[in-house]
């Protein structure tokens, strides 16, 4: 009988096919035992943007004032009569020069003019209180000299900034129930993330392997962050209603901080939950 194929060629082809089969089986076993059948998908979380709207829609929000005050002070003189000419801010001292009814007067913190008590000063503004109301007077050059910044309970004022490692322009001013934060300060930290960590330490707070939130590990004394009222050990619960329990949520706030006018920070200090209000302008 005549062979159609030479037996050794058939044998070689068979060896190759067996080899292919072995490789295929090997990969099959590896896939079955060791390799996953589907990939890891990232499920999007709510970004920090939403919190901005919450602040805007809250009825008792402390919005950035836009109109100069004309009420409240007409009886015993108006804040409009006070013209802010100069500001001097040092670590412990705030001195301003004002012009009132044609006369120039130098005021330090606690002193008053026309019944308006100087509470503090920022880079280009000074804050006064009168009858439990706060008033903001802008430097002469600025447009819109005076602004009402809401109710005040005459608490301590910390107007000046003294960053020993690096001086950052901008102020945090306590006006009682909330704090005024200079936008230039916010802009600086939004652009220089490294500078944030020189002044404040924020660590992870974990529940087992799951990230529960973030805790403040240190706050540099006299830094703008110290003036924000946060302390070592504070747990950041939420910012503008957005729970800060993931890096995404925290980064969302960081990314949008430049566009915020108001900020409500909820922290847990000891067993107490506190709400810190800030106005950025």
């Amino acid at each position, binding site marked *: 009988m005549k062979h159609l194929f030479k037996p050794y060629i058939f044998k*070689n082809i068979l060896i*190759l096919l067996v080899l292919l089969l072995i490789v295929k089986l090997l990969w099959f076993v590896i896939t079955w035992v060791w390799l996953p059948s589907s990939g890891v998908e990232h499920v999007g979380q709510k970004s920090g943007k939403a919190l901005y709207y919450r602040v805007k829609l809250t009825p008792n929000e402390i919005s950035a004032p836009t109109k100069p005050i004309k009420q409240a002070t007409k009886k015993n003189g108006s804040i409009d009569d006070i013209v802010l000419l100069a500001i001097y801010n040092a670590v412990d001292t705030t001195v301003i020069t004002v012009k009132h009814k044609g006369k120039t007067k130098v005021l330090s913190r606690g002193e008053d003019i026309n019944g308006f008590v100087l509470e503090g000063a920022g880079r280009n503004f000074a804050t006064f209180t009168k009858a439990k109301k706060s008033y903001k007077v802008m430097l002469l050059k600025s447009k819109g000299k005076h602004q009402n910044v809401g109710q005040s309970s005459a608490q301590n004022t910390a107007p000046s900034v003294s960053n020993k490692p690096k001086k950052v322009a901008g102020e945090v001013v306590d006006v009682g129930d909330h704090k005024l934060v200079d936008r230039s300060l916010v802009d600086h930290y939004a652009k220089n993330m490294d500078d944030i960590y020189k002044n404040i330490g924020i660590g992870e707070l974990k529940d087992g392997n799951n990230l529960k939130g973030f805790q403040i590990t240190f706050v540099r004394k006299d830094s703008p962050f110290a003036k924000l009222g946060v302390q070592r050990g504070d747990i950041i619960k939420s910012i503008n209603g957005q729970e800060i329990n993931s890096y995404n949520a925290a980064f969302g706030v960081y990314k949008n901080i430049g566009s915020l006018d108001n900020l409500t920070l909820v922290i847990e200090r000891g067993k107490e939950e506190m709400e810190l209000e800030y106005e950025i302008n």
Partner: protein
Amino acid sequence: MQMVKKFFILLFVLWFAILFFMPKQALYYKLEEILLENDIKINEKNIEEGLFSLTLHDSKVYVKGIELATIEKIDFFTLLFYTKVEVNKLVLDPSLKNVAPTHIDEIKIAHAIWNPLNVSLDAQGSFGNVNGQASLLERHIRVDFNETKNTEMLKGSLKQDEKGWFYETSF
């Protein structure tokens, strides 16, 4: 002679079979799992499997849940003795513009069996061309900047020697 020829044919078929039957997509999923341990996730629009390659299109890179980069194309290519990863059009989140160049046109990472202890790295972007090498034995990376345009944000991390500006780190 016949035996040698037969051996090489078998070797070629084995090499080809390994590449042909390689579950490239599943291996990529394994890589995703390893990256996940470091809180890195890659979401790709689609995966294209080739004979020797795997291509990811329109990927988003998340680090700790934050979307930090988008990549138009990532190409994994292997011949077993030569492996290359090519990243095209990487755009970093604008918030990182102060720490790194946000637009990188191309990154090539290659490993060859004839240089087993080193991985080469080349990149092109707004910063010009960079060439580098990672030593697997010394666990050290050095990247040389051939040009120094648009590298202000990196200057703090760069060093200079007789060859010019370079970046180095250990892993």
